[in-house]
């Protein structure tokens, strides 16, 4: 019994001391980190990799701290409109109700909404013995609607002369979770092949019976593990899987950053949302040569006016960095996104510049 009393006397204090000792020292790479204002964001998980690139690049030459919770687009929009976060990322622009809520939250000056993250969505396939494949929008719609079920279907063969297509069952892979990628892809199918795609546009996959996987990583993994699979995913994650060349007009286009960003330039801006809102209805059915129509455009939301001047400056500088050539390049290198064109940048720049603080003058 003696030993156990001794043990009691020592175990707890030692454990406690150990714990506190550990807490006392910070990370090796953070010693002497300068302090500054902290701004918080939340929203689309698609932007997470890009946001990480942006904040790293931005904080190299600025003080402060930036956080981004990838809680999902709608979570980000909600937290932004009820004042929970300073900025938000969203795969879709605000709807009318949210516009009102955002204007209420931001007060005078309204809100800023700019496309900062453009990412091509690649169609990835894994078919034994096939390493290049071309598909027309109608064919894609039929495949994902499970109307074409074999890879050697005459309709697929027609646009793939010289390719030896196997008699394998087609396994379409879709996202199991609600996502902006799904919404953008479905929107593309609806607009580019309306007759073959009778389903409504939403962020949930409308066809049952396909293979469903969680998140981009899940889709890529499922496509990789199966044979005869086809799925849609952020192009940056396509890796060494075969990507589909998509029919646009009379030609077939392989995804590329330039081709994806080009869509934004032929798309129309949505009017009547305030001067600082740059929302676009994408031209999915474009016949323009050299554009890749399956893209995900993700927006950044902020207020034109913040109570705290330091915060306002920080948000403004950060957004400026995001849309700058440097920031877009950083996102391209880290997240595989498509840099926005100079033309678009010059259009949205004034919106970002409008961010400020009502108190800064006084």
């Amino acid at each position, binding site marked *: 019994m003696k030993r156990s009393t001794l043990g009691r006397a020592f175990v707890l204090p030692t454990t406690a001391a150990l714990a506190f000792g550990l807490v006392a020292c910070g990370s090796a790479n953070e010693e002497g980190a300068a302090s500054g204002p902290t701004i918080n964001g939340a929203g689309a998980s698609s932007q997470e990799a890009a946001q990480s690139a942006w904040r790293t690049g931005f904080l190299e030459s600025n003080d402060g701290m930036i956080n981004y919770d990838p*809680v999902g*687009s*709608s979570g980000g929009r909600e937290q932004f409109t009820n004042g929970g976060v300073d900025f938000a990322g969203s795969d879709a622009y605000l709807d009318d109700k949210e516009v009102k809520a955002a204007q209420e939250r931001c007060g005078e000056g309204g809100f800023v909404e700019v496309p900062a993250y453009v990412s091509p969505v690649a169609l990835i396939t894994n078919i034994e013995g096939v390493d290049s494949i071309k598909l027309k929008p109608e064919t894609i719609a039929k495949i994902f609607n499970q109307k074409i079920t074999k890879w050697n279907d005459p309709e697929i063969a027609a646009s793939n002369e010289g390719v030896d297509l196997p008699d394998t*069952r087609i396994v379409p*892979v879709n996202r199991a979770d*609600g996502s902006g990628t799904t919404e953008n892809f479905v929107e593309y199918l609806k607009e580019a092949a309306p007759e073959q795609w009778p389903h409504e546009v939403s962020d949930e996959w409308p066809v049952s019976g396909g293979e469903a*996987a969680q998140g981009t990583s*899940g889709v890529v993994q499922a496509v990789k593990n199966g044979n005869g699979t086809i799925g849609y995913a952020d192009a940056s994650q396509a890796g060494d899987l075969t990507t589909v060349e998509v029919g646009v007009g009379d030609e077939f286009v392989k995804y590329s950053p330039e081709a994806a960003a080009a869509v934004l330039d032929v798309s129309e801006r949505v009017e009547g949302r305030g001067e600082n809102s740059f929302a676009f209805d994408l031209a999915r059915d474009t016949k323009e040569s050299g554009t890749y129509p399956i893209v995900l455009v993700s927006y950044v939301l902020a207020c034109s006016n913040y109570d705290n001047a330091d915060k306002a400056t920080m948000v403004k500088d950060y957004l400026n960095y995001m849309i700058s050539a440097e920031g877009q390049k950083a996102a391209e290198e880290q997240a595989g996104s498509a840099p926005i064109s100079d033309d678009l940048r010059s259009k949205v720049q004034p919106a970002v510049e409008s961010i400020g603080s009502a108190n800064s003058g006084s």
Partner: protein
Amino acid sequence: MASSTEAPPRKNRVPRRPGDRIFAGVSTGSGVLILVALAGVAVFLVTEAWPALTAPAEDIPGGQGLVVYIWPLLFGTLISAVLALVIAVPLAVAIALFITYYAPRSIAKALGYIIDLLAAVPSIIFGLWGMNVLAPVTVDPASWLSQHLGWIPFFAGPPSSTGRTMLVAIIVLAVMVLPIITAVVREAFTQTPQLHQEAALAIGATRWEMIRMAALPFGRSSIIGASMLGLGRALGETMAVAMVLSASAGGITFNLISSENPPTIAANIALQFPEATGVGMHTLIASGLVLFAITLVVNMIARAVINRRKDFDGAN
């Protein structure tokens, strides 16, 4: 339990000590605190689920009302959790028996430790493992099953070519709850009175007869309790199922090996919540409320079963 020791009619020569009163008060207080916390959660759940309960049917995702939306989820949750338990409980009891009665003492200790450790593996790891390791392994056996045993509804096929099936989700769940059940059951077996065991052996019982007569009856309440603990985890498991299962809404089927499966409630909440808005979000919370109710029923049944055997509690 301790009622035999209270004996109020006895002449109360010993007054209730202040220590007793404080201790009883603090314990009761904790219990009440739990009730308060739960009331908070319940109020939160009901207020959040209310808009979905009262919303017109066409506003619910799927457009056919709450029942149509939740029913497949409920089905998926029940079938995955129950089948996982069917696999896990016998195995867990076997492991506990093996460690307690069959394995050499020195090895038994290490084995017990390994099993405890596995109870500690976070669900995300099981998700990663199920997706990357287990799912591909099941593709060939699944197609064999559908070819030769296709007449059993469970194996009707067509087999999934990626292996991300209900079968894999069930196995993953079973593997996840296995260590939990084992740990509790093993603890009960080690508590089996030594005297009972020795008495059984002394009258010439074989090892199995000793286990059947001394250990199993003693551990029965623990086995049921542990199973319920496991079932609770299997019902509520989120990430692992979300990562492993290829789920599509509306797919009510007993078919375990195709790629069209009903999702589970918890996994569906995890999958849809980040992008859910308005009524959609409230619907998800309402489905959470249903999960709540199932767990309630399951636990009530378990309590009833345990209480019937209560005479055996407390090693009397």
